[in-house]
């Protein structure tokens, strides 16, 4: 496993994109140490290739989808309902065969944040996302839906052979 974005990339602004990801690995393994969203209750999301075109991402949270999940999103969800004053969050994301050019792309993730409804409690998430495009993934965009990223946090993108 090799760290691709040397030293990790500090989250900043409204979104942070890791671009020009080389196609030389088989899978990607991403670890995100979470910072605070600006707005209480924000969640972290991720877009394949920074693509915000409608109807290309489909997402599920925490289980079986019954075969009825529509591609009606512009991103996948990594966390929900994070408190904006207690940056105790961590997320892992696994993206298999990201450079393949003949299959849909997919990630699964799991993570934990402080719940904004009760900061003493943990908000766990286990999510998955499909992206109905077959081009290689060369960029990952991360953003909070609760406004800009208030402070700190780091993204580590590892290539796995």
């Amino acid at each position, binding site marked *: 496993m090799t760290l*691709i*974005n*040397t030293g990790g*990339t*500090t*989250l*900043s*602004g*409204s*979104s*942070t*994109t*890791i*671009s*020009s*990801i*080389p196609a030389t690995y088989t899978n990607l393994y991403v670890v995100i140490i979470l910072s605070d969203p600006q*707005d209480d*209750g*924000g*969640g972290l*999301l991720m877009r394949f290739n920074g693509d*915000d075109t409608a109807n290309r991402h489909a997402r599920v949270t925490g289980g079986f989808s019954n075969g009825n999940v529509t591609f009606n999103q*512009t*991103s996948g969800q990594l966390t929900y*309902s994070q408190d904006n004053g207690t940056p105790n969050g961590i997320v892992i994301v696994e993206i298999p065969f990201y450079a393949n050019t003949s299959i849909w792309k997919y990630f699964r993730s799991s993570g934990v944040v402080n719940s904004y*409804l009760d900061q003493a409690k943990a908000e766990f998430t286990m999510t998955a996302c499909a992206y109905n495009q077959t081009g290689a993934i060369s960029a990952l965009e991360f*953003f909070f*839906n*609760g*406004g*800009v990223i208030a402070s700190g946090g780091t993204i580590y*993108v590892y290539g796995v052979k």
Partner: protein
Amino acid sequence: MSRPIKRIYDCATGETIDREMNDDEFAQYQADQAIFLAEKAETEAKAAQKAALLERLGITEDEARLLLA
């Protein structure tokens, strides 16, 4: 008024660029914000309903879990 900043790290060059959103990105940002606010309002409404129901029943959240286990 300045727009939110996007950070882009380029793995090929090791460079980090911070720039303002363009028109399309800003429109998407505003759409994402609207969805977030709607979902947050729904979450908070459900939490309030749950708290009110527990109070009416006169039991704690842990006791409610015990009943449903």
